[in-house]
Structures are given as C-alpha cells and as structure tokens.
C-alpha cells in the first residue's frame, strides 16, 4: 500500500475506530503492542523487587528459612490453582469474543472476575492471619524465637507483604477493568471485527497470573531451602 494515497474518509467507519488510525487492523496491532510494551515495564517493576528479595535471600538464608515456615502453603497453592483457572476462563473469553458469541463471552468474563475475587478473598484471609500473628513489619512486629534474627525475619516479611501486596493491587485493578469490559460486552461492543479490549484485558490478566506463578514458589515453597551454596 506504499504507493497509494489513503484518504481516511474513504473508509466505512467502524464505531470504535479511533480517528488517528487508518483501519481496525492497525488499531488492533497498536493496542496489543501497547499492552505488551506496558507489560515489559511491569516485568522490570516486579523484577526489581525480586532482585532485592534474592540478594537478601543470599545474605540471610537462616532468617529466610524461619520466615518461610510461617507461610500457609495450602492457601498459597489453592490460590495458584484459582488464578490458573481464571487465566483459562479469561483465554476462553477472548476466544468467544473473537467468535462473536456474546453470551459465552459474558459468562467467561464473569467467571474470571469471580475467580479473581476468590483469590483476593483467600489472600485477605492469609493477611488477617499474619496480622494477628504479629508478622506485619513495623512497630507491630513480634518475633521471640531468635531475637538476633528478628530484623532479618522482618525483612522477609517486608518482601512478603510488599510483593503480594503489589500483586494484589494489580488483581484489584484487573477486577475493576473486568467490570468495565463486562459492561462493554453486555452492550454488544465486541465481535470478530473488534475485540481488542478483551484481548488486551486478557494480556494484562495473564501477566498478573505469571507474577503469581513466580511469587508462589519464592515466598511459600523454597525460602527454607537456602541458596546457591545451600
């Protein structure tokens, strides 16, 4: 198309084609690329705190081992399965939007939201337990077993609350976005021609799932295995 002058007004305008784009294909490619670039920044955002976590894990293996034993592995494991299932329903929602089946899209989007809320509920239960155990860092923090390790155990808990908190914040934003996408799906905005918002929502949701896929082993399963030189 390089030697053809394109007039924007020659197109039949799709109601959701924004004026700066020539066609829906260009718009779709731009929005998915935009989300991927955003996710790249998210990878570095979470990656940065993960590196800090790894450095202290390398320096303080004993404290990490003690703190790791405080985690509720069962709750974390169930939450992992919940999130994976929500990723499946999200992927299916994108698929049904592509196929233009409004009712199925709504069902899968709603299921995704429900699983997301379940995850947050289980997480809240864990937070509540940790709070009452005195495992919230700061003036509230209590650790009597090995007083000399207390600051380092607290350091682990800072990372635990910080990383799961950032993840939960992303989940809350994701659920909020789902409400918006559901309302648009309800108004029959999507179809085989135009489903970019569902696709982009899916990319975000899967990314948040991936973050948890890493957080689960790091925070629940392997803190007590020491590091590198064991």
């Amino acid at each position, binding site marked *: 198309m390089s*030697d*053809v002058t*394109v007039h924007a007004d020659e197109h039949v305008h799709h109601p959701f084609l924004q004026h700066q784009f020539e066609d829906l294909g260009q718009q779709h490619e731009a929005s998915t*690329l935009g989300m991927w670039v955003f996710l790249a920044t998210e990878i570095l955002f979470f990656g*940065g705190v993960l590196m800090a976590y790894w*450095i202290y894990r390398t320096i303080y293996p004993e404290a990490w081992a003690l703190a790791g034993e405080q985690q509720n592995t069962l709750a974390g494991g169930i939450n992992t399965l919940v999130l994976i299932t929500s990723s499946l329903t999200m992927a299916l929602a994108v698929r049904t939007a592509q196929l233009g089946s409004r009712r199925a899209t709504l069902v899968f989007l709603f299921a995704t939201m429900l699983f997301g809320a379940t995850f947050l509920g289980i997480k809240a239960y864990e937070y509540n337990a940790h709070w009452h155990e005195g495992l919230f860092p*700061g003036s509230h923090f209590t650790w009597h077993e090995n007083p000399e390790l207390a600051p380092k155990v607290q350091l682990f808990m800072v990372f635990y609350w*910080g990383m799961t908190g950032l993840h939960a914040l992303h989940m809350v934003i994701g659920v909020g976005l789902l409400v918006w996408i559901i309302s648009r799906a309800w108004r029959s905005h999507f179809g085989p021609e135009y489903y970019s918002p569902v696709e982009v929502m899916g990319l975000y949701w899967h990314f948040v799932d991936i973050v948890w896929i890493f957080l689960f082993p790091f925070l629940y399963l392997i803190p007590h295995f020491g590091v590198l030189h064991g």
Partner: protein
Amino acid sequence: MTSVTYHDVQFLEPAKTRNYLNVDYGALSWLLTKDHKRIGILYMVSISVMFILGGFFALMMRLELLTPEGDLLTSDTYNKFFTLHGIIMIFFFLIPSIPAVLGNFILPIQLGAKDLAFPRINLLSWYLYMIGAFTGLLVVIIGGVDTGWTFYTPFSTQYSNTHVIGTTFGAFIVGFSSILTGLNFIVTIHRMRAPGLTWYRLPLFVWAMYATSLVQLLATPILAITLVMLMIERFIHVGIFDPALGGDPLLFQHMFWFYSHPAVYIMILPAMGVASEVVAAFTRKKIFGYTFVAYSSLAIAFLGFLVWAHHMFVAGISVYSAMIFSFLSYFVAVPSAIKVFNWTATLYKGSVSWQTPMLYILGFIGLFTMGGVTGLFLAALGLDVHVTDTYFVVAHFHYIMVGGAVMGYFAGLHYWWPKITGRMYPEWWARLGALLVFVGFNLTFFPQFILGYLGMPRRYHAYAPEFQVLNVMSTAGASILAVGYMLPLVYLLWSLRFGRKAGTNPWGAVGLEWTTSSPPPKDNFHETPVVTWEAYDYPAMLKAMGETQNV
C-alpha cells in the same frame, strides 16, 4: 480563477486557515485536549515554570558561594536548595523537556501520522506529570527536602527530618508520566508511519526518540520500585536499605543508578536527535553516515545500562565489579564519539548558515564533547577516587545536562518554533541569547572543573578562602547564563503576537513537518502523505530548486 464568490470564501477559507490553535477555544478545549500538539504546548508551559523555579534555586546557591563564609543561606537551607534544584531540574524539567514537548509535537508529524497511537494516554501522562509536579511544589512550600536528588539511604529513610516521602512520591508519579510517553512513542513509531516511510527514511530525531523511549521504558520501572521500597522503609521504619536493621544501602544505590545513569541518556539522546536535524538543515547536506548515527542512538541506549556502578566506586562495592564497570563505562564513549564525528563530517564543505538553532547546536557539540571527555576521566577507577564528590563531578554533569541537553532543547525550540506557533522569533535577539548562554555557561562551569580538581567538595555552603576567585567567576557566569535564559522567554512571547509569519517551510528544510502548514491543522495533514524520498535529501532538493530557478 478571477472571481471569488462569497460562497467560496465562506466554505473554503475557514477550512484552509483552521489550525490546531484556532480550531476551538477556551480553557477546557486545552485541558481536555487529545491533540498531541496541544499536549506538547501544555508540557512546554509546565516545564518552563519548573525551569524557572529550578534556576532560582541554582542562582541562590551561586550567590551563597560568592563568599567563602556561609553568610547568605544557612547550611540547612543550602542543603534544601541544592536538593530542590536537582530534583526539579532532573525529574520535572530535563526528563520531560525534549521528549514531552518537542517529541510530542513533532514526532507524529515527522511520521506523517494524525496523532500518537494513544491520545488519551498522552493526556493522562500530562496529568500525571502535573500531579507529580504539584506534589513537588507542595514540598517546596511546606519546608523542602534535604537528601540531595539521589535520596541516598539510610539518611533519606531514617534520619532526614524533611519531606522525603512527598518528594519521592512526586518523582514516582512523574516516572509513570515518562513511561507512558515512551510507550506512546514506541507504538506510534512502529505502527503509525506514513506509507513509504521506511525505517531508513526516518528522520534521525525519530531514531533518537525511539532510543530515548526504550530507556524510559526499561529503566523507569526500576526507579519506581526502588522509590516504593524507600517509601515503605521510611513509613514503617523497617530496614530494607538500613544497615542497622539488616538492610544494605548499596542495594539502594545499585537500583537507583540502574535508572539514574540511563536517565542521563533520556536527557541527552533527544538533544542528539535535534542536533542531527539542525546540522543537516543548516548545512544543506545529507547527514554523513546516517545509519551510524541512527544505530549509535540504540547503542547508547543499550550500553548506558551497563555502567551504572561507576557512580559507586568509592561506596564500598566489590573492587572486581568496579573494574568491570570502569571498563564498560569507556564503551559508551564510542557511539557518542561516532555521532560527534558524523556531525562534524556533515559540517565539512557544507553551506553553513548561522541561524540560532545552528548556533545552539554548534555550542552543543563542543560542550557535549567536553562533558563526554571529562566523563572518561571519571570512568577511570583511579582518577575517580581523587575527584569523587568534588566540583569536578558537578562541572562534568552540567556540561552534559546543561551544555548538552538544555542547549539541544533550546536549539529544537527555536528550530521548530515557526512550526509550533506559525511565527518567526526575532533572529538578532535569539543569536544574542545563544551567545550569552554559551559564554555564561562556560564561565559558570569551567572554573568548577578546576575547583574540583583542586579538591573543593560539592554540597557545602562554605569553602576554603583560596577557592574564592574561581567561585566568583562561576557566580558571574551564572548571572550571565540567567540573562541568556530570560531573553528567549521575553522574545518568544513577543513573537507570538509580533513575529513575522513563518510560512510552511521557513528554513527550506526537508522533512514531513515542513510540508504542512504552520501551525499545522488539527490532523496534521490535509491528506495522508506518501513518502518517496530519502531522509535529508538536501542535494535532490537543491537540484530541484536550481531547475525551477532556471525555468
């Protein structure tokens, strides 16, 4: 056509003269605009306010340093002033300067696009910037902050009793604004180029903005998470970076400089892009070694990430890794030198015209080279130990950031001013301004190289009497520099009303932005342009002009 009816005028003229400035009116049409050009102007006004504010703090510091005694400002006030100067100039002025103002305005037009890919996100990024900037201003009003712009821990998290959380929150928010600008540019450059505009036909400003956006996207998230950890530590008094509680302050420095060293390239790469545009336009030549200049931008963006710990040579990092970082730091000089050589090779046998943008860029090339070469001194492990935390470092990074980035910004501002406003600035006054800036800058900062080498430490409000002569020179230079910066503020505002009408292409330059009217229409072009020419094809243009003159 000889007779024009009323009917013709009514229906043709408004459409012709309608541009992005007069398409609609009122404060809301600006505050809710999604037009990249108007957002560029919003940014221009906001960062100018920040520039004046940051400049005020700088001038106060220079006045204090006129005498060896700490007589004008107390040490506490002085600490706050250099901190605010640094934070305002870096986060609120330099980082957004060329990308958010000139990039926002010019980049989509250079691509032949109607707008950026995500206009609403573009507006959001300005609002985020304003929230961050207002937080910063609020901190200034309620008492300031004294950590230095680097927020080093544990001072910033445990000991400083100034408004650290407010300031870091402001920087954190502005970081998102920067990320969103970069995201918009990357997607726009990939997906919105006009038909025929291949990668190797792109103006070098676009390549530079692309490289800048890469750095913004890949470095800023690390600053964001680092500032989050800093705020958490200060807020609930835990020891992420506090050695007393098991943390490691060096980790903060690693993560901070992983952003803040590449951040220097967020400032300098766009200026290099402006330099390529201006050098080609005012020598009437193709840029020498286009692909080298283009890829050297990407090389700088990449290598800039591998050198950060040269800011930490005396901080207690492993000497082995220090050697590696010292070695890697030399590599950044290579692509920068490639650019300088290519610009000077373009000047060779060009028909150079001495307009203001060109004066600024000639200054830029010289000062950037000075800054770069002294950077090599600092990359050398042994020499760095001698001059760490002295005025040598201060002079070095001002040669890069002011001599480089600010000169580049002013060059671009003058170069594209006719396009942005439709009016020419007064050339004589502008040349005078450029001259004052160049002289004032050198008088301010060259003595600081000597001061630093002689051992005067930075960040103190008093100093040993033997340093006074050089400090007086520096302060004198700063006053000249201030006049040089105030001049454009006056004559550019003057030109909005009284400047000569610019016309479509006042410089006779090549590039899509010079094919549309000044100021451009709301959608930039009346119809989507098709690009059939190579970048900077001045020889072909001169040939064509010669032919039409012969006819």
